[in-house]
């Protein structure tokens, strides 16, 4: 069928024309594919009509099916399921869709389904399913937990997965994969469309999403589906904010706020400015600092982060739209979402850690076609200026990161099976066939599947006659949860986002401020002053799982440090960074500084000191520094591969050295390098350095050094929550189940000791290998080191390169000595 010959196209085209708009090429392409009942992926940035590419396609298709009565036809049941990762997006998208439906005079309803949807709206949606349902992955799974859920999807024509690049690579993406596999099993006729921004592995992104659909058509998933690309080129201008003086001993988080005076003119010279800060704690500090530096900003400056009350956040977003705010200090909370047209400028404070995120943030400014996206990079320590130089070049050559899809997430699968078991129940044979069509579980074997079934029905290792394990029961082959309490608890815990237990913060006189981690409140004494949502608050007491506070005028306050995920430097940015250091090293011996990034020339004094004390590594060199201080013997290594790879490498290196001699280390790392610290000299020199960095036996050495480190335990926490072993409850809302409390680390120890074959335990080790250790990346790094020159220096004091590691440290244990010996050696150092 030719798109332009259809009635649907005529109607939509006429409507657009009335508004003096014409469809983009990529939109028309998508519409053509949709009326041809094809599936695929739309690659388009935000703010260029990507929503309309799929949504209007669905409308056109409907009009074509009902050319005579498309206007009057109502109660058509679900036509379009719109999956979006962000609740905040749902309202805006819904509004835009309703507007179109209204103007076309159609009788469609748009429903929104997420954690904020009221019970009465849910009931309404249940009685009459709207034609368009906008839903989060979690709510979609909740829908699968309803009795008779299959009816909802009978009429479904199109499933759209918005911001797929955000979901891919996370367990929420796996949730989407599973839901798609179920829908494909129920109703094999719908088309599936992903919408994604540009990422390094777009082709794979399509394959992951469409895999169950490809299976329906018995086609190979890597070749199935259409790709539609929006040809919209964005001009990005990157500028660094330079400190007046380059400090030679940089440390993270210290410099940024000093540059606040340099930020004021930027804010003043642009209509609206977004200031992206990497952590919530720092964003609170920046908000205060800006207000202090420029009191005129009062009333036109706002703060936006994940711990701030929803209403307040919506208010900020609303005022960003209308241009009433001059500047907003925000975190990743504003990475996604609809566009704020008044935003002309973006300031990135600190490393964005990756090219993709940097571009995404830059793209939040200058949205109108033809406008330039302007982004300033403000370093939090002087060495970070190198990242600005690296980002500039990476942007130029479009070195955008990939999002690696997750594989074999048993925790999500266990949760999914329980979800199906509380609605209509399931037959393992059918579901096994379905999940094998997903990308995530395509390699699951029978044994693993049997173990999962065994775990959910019999609870692993038990003492048979002394056991009353109960979760999924098998009745005539149907796997079902009948216990209402267990079902209820499961329903409350559907989802894969695990956060620390949170507590509501309220004024004693009434009024909600936000939420904050329980552990932070637990440390406070009544009368202590802290900052949240830009307000200075005095802690009064805890009542009914709520922290009560009153306003305070105190000058000093504690800023909570939220334990958000610390992002590691991406491989792409690391590569670019090494290249820039190479340029910097060469520059020292050059007279002509033409064509060199200003970031590098500004840092000259720091580089000179580094070269004087130690060395600046070239691209084909690995720098190692031996330094002795009061703390002990330090070994600093600088591979520039990002925090996670460094963490793994540090553990492996510590393990390998400890085989030479019994020695205990503490480890620290940042994105540029890592440190081993010991109370005795570290035996690494010219004779053994290549051997210690050998890729041989890497896997085994990782495994061995793993047990001693706490990494798997940390991963296990989320897995245990997702897999239903730990109940977290919601902030202040629900009493925790009595006598069912346990900590993830306790459960981890228990499983490690008594049921080492447990699938969730194994998964935590696998996740460490894949995510934490990034084994693949680690191996590549070691291979690179084998080919490069290892330079070992012995500076007589800390160098500019190692100083930030010293400050930005997070330590872990590793030992080869007998535990007892260690206790005896340490016993005199008992904590005071």
């Amino acid at each position, binding site marked *: 069928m030719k798109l332009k010959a259809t009635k649907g196209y005529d109607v939509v085209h006429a409507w657009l024309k009335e508004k003096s708009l014409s469809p983009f090429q990529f939109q028309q392409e998508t519409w053509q594919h949709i009326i041809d009942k094809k599936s695929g992926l739309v690659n388009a940035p935000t703010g260029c009509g990507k929503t309309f590419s799929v949504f209007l396609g669905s409308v056109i298709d409907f009009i074509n099916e009902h050319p005579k009565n498309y206007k009057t036809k109502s109660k058509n049941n679900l036509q379009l399921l719109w999956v979006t990762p962000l609740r905040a997006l749902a309202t805006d998208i819904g509004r835009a869709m309703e507007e179109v439906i209204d103007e076309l005079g159609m009788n469609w309803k748009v429903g929104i389904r997420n954690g904020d949807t009221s019970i009465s709206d849910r009931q309404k949606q249940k009685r009459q399913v709207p034609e368009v349902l906008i839903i989060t992955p979690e709510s979609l799974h909740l829908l699968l937990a309803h009795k008779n859920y299959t009816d909802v999807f009978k009429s479904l024509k199109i499933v759209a997965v918005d911001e797929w690049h955000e979901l891919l690579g996370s367990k929420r993406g796996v949730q989407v994969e599973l839901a798609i596999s179920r829908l494909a099993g129920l109703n094999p006729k719908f088309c599936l469309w992903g919408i994604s921004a540009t990422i390094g592995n777009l082709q794979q992104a399509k394959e992951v999403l469409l895999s169950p659909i490809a299976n329906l058509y018995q086609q190979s998933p890597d070749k199935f589906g259409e790709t539609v690309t929006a040809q919209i080129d964005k001009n990005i201008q990157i500028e660094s904010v330079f400190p007046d003086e380059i400090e030679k001993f940089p440390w993270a988080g210290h410099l940024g706020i000093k540059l606040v005076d340099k930020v004021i003119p930027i804010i003043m010279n642009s209509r609206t400015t977004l200031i992206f800060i990497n952590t919530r704690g720092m964003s609170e500090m920046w908000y205060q600092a800006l207000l202090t530096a420029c009191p005129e900003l009062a009333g036109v400056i706002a703060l936006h982060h994940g711990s701030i009350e929803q209403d307040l956040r919506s208010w900020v977003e609303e005022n960003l739209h209308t241009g009433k705010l001059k500047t907003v200090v925000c975190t990743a909370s504003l990475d996604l979402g609809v566009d704020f047209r008044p935003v002309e400028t973006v300031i990135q404070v600190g490393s964005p850690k990756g090219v993709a995120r940097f571009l995404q943030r830059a793209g939040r400014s200058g949205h109108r076609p033809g406008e330039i996206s302007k982004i300033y990079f403000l370093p939090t320590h002087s060495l970070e200026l190198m990242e600005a130089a690296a980002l500039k070049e990476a942007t130029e050559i479009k070195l955008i990161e990939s999002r690696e899809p997750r594989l074999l997430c048993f925790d999500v699968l266990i949760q999914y099976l329980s979800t199906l078991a509380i609605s209509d129940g399931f037959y393992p044979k059918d579901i096994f066939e379905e999940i094998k069509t997903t990308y995530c579980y395509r390699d699951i074997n029978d044994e693993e599947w049997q173990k999962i079934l065994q775990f959910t029905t019999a609870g692993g290792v*038990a003492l048979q006659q002394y056991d009353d394990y*109960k979760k999924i029961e098998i009745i005539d082959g149907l796997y079902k949860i009948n216990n209402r309490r267990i079902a209820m608890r499961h329903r409350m815990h559907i989802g894969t986002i695990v956060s620390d237990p949170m507590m509501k913060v309220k004024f004693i006189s009434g009024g909600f401020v936000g939420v904050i981690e329980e552990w932070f409140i637990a440390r406070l004494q009544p009368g202590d002053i802290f900052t949240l949502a830009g307000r200075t608050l005095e802690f009064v007491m805890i009542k009914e799982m709520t922290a009560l506070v009153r306003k305070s005028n105190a000058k000093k306050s504690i800023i909570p440090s939220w334990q958000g995920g610390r992002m590691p430097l991406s491989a792409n940015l690391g590569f670019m960074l090494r290249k820039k250091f190479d340029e910097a090293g060469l520059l020292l011996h050059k007279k002509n500084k033409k064509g060199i990034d200003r970031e590098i020339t500004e840092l000259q004094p720091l580089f000179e000191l580094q070269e004087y004390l130690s060395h600046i590594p070239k691209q084909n060199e690995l720098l190692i520094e031996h330094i002795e201080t009061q703390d002990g013997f330090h070994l600093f290594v600088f591979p520039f591969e990002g925090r996670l790879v460094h963490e793994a490498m540090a553990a492996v290196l510590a393990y390998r050295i400890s085989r030479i001699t019994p020695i*205990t280390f503490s480890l620290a790392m940042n994105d540029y390098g890592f440190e081993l610290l010991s109370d005795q000299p570290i035996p690494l020199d010219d004779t053994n350095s290549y051997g210690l960095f050998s890729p041989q036996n890497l896997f085994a050495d990782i495994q061995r050094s793993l047990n001693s480190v706490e990494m798997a335990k940390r991963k296990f926490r989320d897995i245990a929550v997702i897999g239903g072993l730990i109940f977290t409850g919601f902030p202040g809302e629900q009493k925790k189940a009595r006598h069912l409390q346990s900590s993830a680390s306790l459960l981890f120890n*228990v499983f490690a000791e*008594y049921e080492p074959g447990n699938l969730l335990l194994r998964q935590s080790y696998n996740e460490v290998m894949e995510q934490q250790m990034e084994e693949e990346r680690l191996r590549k790094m070691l291979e690179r080191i084998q080919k490069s020159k290892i330079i070992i220096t012995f500076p007589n004091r800390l160098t500019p390169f190692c100083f930030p590691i010293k400050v930005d440290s997070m330590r872990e*244990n590793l030992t080869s000595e007998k535990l007892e010996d260690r206790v*005896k*050696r*340490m016993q005199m*150092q008992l904590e005071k």
Partner: protein
Amino acid sequence: MFSPQKFILHKETLWLSPARCVYWEDEKALILSDLHFGKTGHFRKEGIGVPQNIFKEDLQRLFTQIQFFKPSVLLIAGDMFHSKANKEIDLFLKWRNDLHAIDFHLIKGNHDVLPDKFYEEAGIKVSKKKLSVKNFCFTHDINEECENDDEITFTFSGHIHPGIKVNGVGKQSFMLPCFYFSDTYAVLPAFSYFTGLYKIKPGKKDNVFALVENKVIKMQ
């Protein structure tokens, strides 16, 4: 090999066992706390599949301790059973029957919610809040009962599952279960392995014994 450590307290000889209990020589009493029997069963009943072997091992360890010290009485400072009755407790009762010569005396803790009849049938004597033996007092939570006076010179308690944080060079640290002795009271480690640790902050004059594998190590 497992080796208990001798500790003299108010002229009484105590043996601190790395298996998380204390043997009081003169009274032939095995003192322990926070066994949390039935905890894995309780979790499993609610659909949380924790391995039951941990309970089996707790039971076996108790049996081994009884064989080693040959006590005539077990003084249990609370939280003997984790929650309501379940099948795991039947396994305990089977063991209990084989040990009928030994008195069990439980001073109830916050977890001991089973009906009185149960203890009666299991041959467990119960004290609600505290129990005095010679000039020692036993209670579950040190913050609630047992004020020392002329007669009572020392109190044994449990409840908090004490752990001691051990620090080393360069911020490394880890926690170990421990016995804690101040000059007026003691806190016993939780007997069950299915328990977490609460970090204690001992004073300078207090005695702390950490438990590492098969040894008791005096920390201070």
